[in-house]
């Protein structure tokens, strides 16, 4: 099976609420695709439709080119963690994976393998209800990995984890993608995906906002802005504005300049005799890039 997820013109409403509104994107193999949007943007709905749990009003979601219900053995094709607490609290962790292995026709040894893989082997017999949030996430991930599937989907896997847990999940996601799997990871916080996602699908109000490589997105968000550090803020701003740049005071000794390359800025300031002690090209964070994208989406939404 080809390791892809294709979502085409997907529409889904619950009563009067439109959850997903004409959404299209593709998740490719060998990379981690971040699926980002504020809470209520339609991420979980999209994942449910991909898994055949909810029926779309129109459009389609294909896994490896087929609708989910046509997969012969879904657990071997797609692994998913939708809700980290989706187990009976009185059932042991190993038994939770055991029934799932039986349902998917998987070998029982896979249960012990994935428990080892997520680091729960030592607590395998304990009732899952007593697990910490981090352990629950690991159990949910173990369930997704059970069928060793080429396509993986995780809904908010980093939610509520401690830094060590976050690091572990990043490493796991990178490793899974490196094995050639298609990995879709949803999150409402872009920062959680920093350092793990190769590609981003950003949605808001059920619509696609961006579908780009992380590298491109960062470059676009950084723009051509330059941060200038000077004790003569007012003189610098006047000189640069007169020379045609757009300037903004961003701190007591900091001016952000756009519309003018760094070497030209140095020229102008030197000519005008304005001293400065620092000049750097601005590097946007993923969070900034995201805020910019969603701010537009919110404004767009309010205007329409």
């Amino acid at each position, binding site marked *: 099976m080809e390791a892809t997820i294709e979502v085409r013109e997907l529409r889904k409403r619950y009563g009067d609420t439109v959850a997903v509104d004409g959404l299209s994107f593709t998740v490719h193999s060998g990379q981690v695709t971040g699926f980002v949007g504020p809470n209520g943007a339609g991420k979980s709905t999209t994942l*449910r439709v991909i*898994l*055949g*749990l*909810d*029926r779309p009003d129109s459009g389609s979601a294909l896994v490896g080119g087929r609708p*989910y*219900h046509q*997969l012969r053995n*879904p*657990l071997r094709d*797609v692994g*998913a963690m*939708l*809700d980290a*607490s*989706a*187990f*009976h*609290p*009185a*059932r*042991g962790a190993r*038994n*939770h994976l*055991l*029934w*799932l292995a*039986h*349902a*998917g*026709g998987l070998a029982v040894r896979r249960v012990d393998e994935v428990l080892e893989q997520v680091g729960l082997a030592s607590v395998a017999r304990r009732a899952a209800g007593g697990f910490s949030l981090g352990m629950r996430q690991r159990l949910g991930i173990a*369930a997704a990995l059970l069928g060793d599937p080429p396509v993986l989907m995780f809904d908010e896997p980093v939610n509520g984890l401690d830094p060590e847990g976050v690091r572990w999940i990043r490493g796991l996601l990178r490793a899974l993608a490196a094995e050639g799997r298609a990995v879709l990871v949803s999150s409402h916080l872009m920062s959680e995906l920093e350092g793990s996602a190769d590609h981003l699908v950003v949605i808001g109000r059920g619509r696609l906002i961006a579908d780009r490589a992380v590298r491109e997105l960062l470059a676009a968000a950084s723009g051509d802005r330059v941060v200038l550090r000077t004790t003569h803020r007012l003189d610098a701003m006047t000189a640069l504005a007169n020379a045609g740049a757009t300037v903004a005071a961003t701190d007591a000794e900091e001016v952000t300049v756009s519309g003018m390359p760094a070497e030209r800025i140095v020229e102008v300031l030197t000519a005008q005799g304005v001293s400065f002690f620092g000049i750097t090209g601005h590097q946007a964070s993923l969070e900034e890039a995201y805020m910019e994208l969603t701010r537009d989406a919110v404004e767009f939404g309010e205007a329409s």
Partner: protein
Amino acid sequence: MSVVSRLLLAEWTKLRTVPRWMFTLAAVAVLTIGVTVLTAAGTIVSGGGGGDEPSDLPANHQDAGNFRYQRLTGDGSLVARVATQADSHQWAKAGLMLRADERHGAASAAIMVTPDHGVHLQSRLGDTDIAGSAAGAPRWLRLDRSGTTVTGYESADGHDWHRVGAVEVAGLTGGADLGLFVASPDEVRIDRQFGGESMTGHPTTGEATFDGIRGDAGAWQDGDRSMPPEEGRVAEDGDTVTLAGGGDVGPTLDVEDRTRTTLAGVLIGLMAVVALAVLFVTAEYKRGMILTTFAATPRRERVLAAKALVLGSATFVAGLVASFGAFLLGSALLGAKGLAMPSLGDAGVLRALVGTAALLAVVAVFSLAVATILRRSAAAITVVLLLLIVPQIIATGLPLSVAMWLSRLTPAAGFAIQETVERYDTAISPWAGFGVLCAYTAVALAVAARRLNRRDA
């Protein structure tokens, strides 16, 4: 492994790995047996049941009344006229009886007049019944024995005889007692009120005078089995004999269904079954685990079928332990108090016991289907208990005819499988009642499967 067997294994794994669910299954048996033991321990048996006497009496039959007989060594005949009969009960009996011996339930045949129902020839304690003319006393009666064949005749004048019929009486091998008898059933009063019924039997005393007695041989002996015993009287005045006695010879509709009595605790065990079955579904919805289940098996009706089969089978096994345990322990306890208890080999007992387990299993599947439709524990448990238990409680406060329709049309009809005897309030036969419950369950399953596939998970 086939899809079916691995789904069954998956659902069985789900069921067995939640410890409290296995405790609940065990509780089905423990509660059922416990309630039975408590009830049995609290039962006070009053009055003598003749428990020590050797008895061939089938369950729910009475073999009482007064009997005055001659011992026959072979074939023989007896003629007498029932001159008068007291109207102690519409089914009071006065006539001639032939019986193998004096034991309760011995092989017998009798021809009799009744105040309201004419002449009857009966054997097997009334289970074989041939109606004669509509005449009452005074009436001439005759009973002939030839081997195991007993023939009854009636006549208005003692000359012009009319043959009522003949019955084969198995077990009538050697000698026999042939004589006059009177019997009179208890007057049964039933007080129905919410939550129960009280049934009281008031003994009536039958009395009749016989004359024109022409027997074959021997001295007259008394074989009084009157209930209560003090009612039995014999008086001779020349050729006229007056017999009085209480109790009936025949089947009783007012008796306790003692098999069913020992199974009363099943109602409590049933609550545990309903709760377990509902939680087996709703626990998955509550925590979103149902998404994992349906992602693993997109054909949702298969999940439903596997759940039903696994839970039904597990409940059936627990139900067998519950019903056999309750019956055996309850019988031992009540038997020790002198009550005549049915045995496993008696008619309907095995059906009631295995049927009770099947009843619990079907109720489990019904609850499962309702829970799948409603997806909420409280709502599902309420609906199932409303349909199963409330009709039984309400029924006791309603007029009998309305109560009977409730017991026929609601899923509570399934409890009929526990009946081993026909009673005055028997609404529906055991299998038909069980069928009603199964029909409700099939419909609920069909609706559940349809909703599973049409609705979002």
